[in-house]
């Protein structure tokens, strides 16, 4: 692994974490659409990163977000689960001819249709876990379903905007 790539990974980690806890934490639309954009960082890890390192990265990221949200463990649990299913899910979605070496599975590299089928289920999965654990012990069903769906759509739109603005085609942030 080249040092440039490690720098990009670490830089992206810090950037996404700070963006999430300083800016996006207060960006909640209609008090039900949350913007958990840090999930995008895990989704956009290069394809050749195996599930063990990506789970460890997700654990650190989740813990960092939890500190600022005062939801100790909830973000961590849901993000680690996302990192665990990411690689099997990538394998299912392998295009004919396979992935390029060290490719980032972003919309620009893989196309909009592929990215939609890749990211939206994972966003939904993450939000389902997060809001389910968060609302354990309360008997709110419809507000929770509403939060899950609205947030997933919101994060998906935000992730497209972020990729169009700040990412280049092929490798690199």
């Amino acid at each position: 692994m080249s040092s440039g790539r490690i720098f990009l990974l670490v830089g992206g980690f810090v950037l996404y974490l700070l963006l999430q806890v300083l800016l996006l934490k207060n960006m909640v639309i209609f008090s039900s659409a949350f913007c958990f954009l840090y999930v995008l960082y895990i989704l956009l890890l290069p394809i050749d990163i195996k599930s063990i390192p990506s789970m460890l990265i997700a654990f650190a990221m989740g813990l960092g977000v939890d500190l600022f949200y005062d939801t100790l463990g909830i973000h961590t649990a849901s993000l680690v689960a996302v990192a665990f299913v990411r690689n099997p899910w990538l394998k299912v979605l392998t295009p004919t001819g396979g992935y390029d070496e060290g490719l980032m599975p972003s919309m620009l590299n893989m196309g909009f249709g592929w990215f939609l089928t890749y990211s939206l289920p994972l966003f939904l999965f993450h939000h389902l876990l997060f809001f389910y654990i968060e609302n354990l012990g309360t008997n709110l069903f419809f507000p929770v379903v509403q939060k899950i769906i609205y947030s997933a759509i919101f994060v998906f739109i935000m992730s497209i905007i972020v990729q169009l603005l700040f990412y280049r085609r092929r490798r690199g942030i």
Partner: protein
Amino acid sequence: MQRILLFLYRLRAFLLFLFLEAIALWLIASYNSQQGSAFFNSANQASGSVLTARNNVVEYFSLASVNKSLVEKNAELLAELEKFRMPADSVYIELDSLLANSFQFKGAKVINNSLNLSQNFLTINKGSNHGIKEGMGVFNEEGVVGRVKGVTKNFASVISVLHTDLLISSKIESSDVFGSTKWDGKDANKAKLLYVPRHVNIKEGDKVVTSGYNAVFPEGIPIGKVFQVSQGAETNYLDITIELAADFSRISYVYLVENNQEEELNELYQSNGISNE
């Protein structure tokens, strides 16, 4: 033996997954008590200083509204003070100091707040160095805000009223009927007043204040107004929705209150087996 090891090695990703999830779930479970250590939340030194830096920028945007509410509170306090001014022709009898001085107040600034989750917390910029202790009541000029959960040296995290596990001992001001205020997790402006029996006569617009029974808050701090009263599904109690007095979306400064006699009261409650909520 080798086969078992090989088998486990093949499952290593799944085992790590289980291990990390177990840690996360353990953290969730251990954090979910009413009071606990403040190390793993936004009150620790690192996140606290990041939040302070952020707040130094953001606070300028709310200065106007903060000033306005402070002026209003000042006017209210001045009016109250006028009542206590002794007329020249009356005799003043000093009360016993034990009765007079059981609450102490402190001020703090909110540096982190949330209101859309089902368990919301605030972080304030004062900690044990400034005399903040676990369990202190928190309110602002509008009404009750929450209760201190954990304290570090320079920061403290506060359970907001918008937390589905927090109960606040309250009463209806006009009729002195007692109940507990609890948030139902839906709307950040509304909460429920529980355990008010059916025979009680309540009108919409009645003020709900703290009861002073659980020794966290002094009596009479506003919580909200009765918004809606219905018979409810439970047979014994009314289903009362109240509109919270504090606007949680723009809390910037809060007051903390400590009851000097809380320890003594709690000891009494405990020795008699009374739960204190």
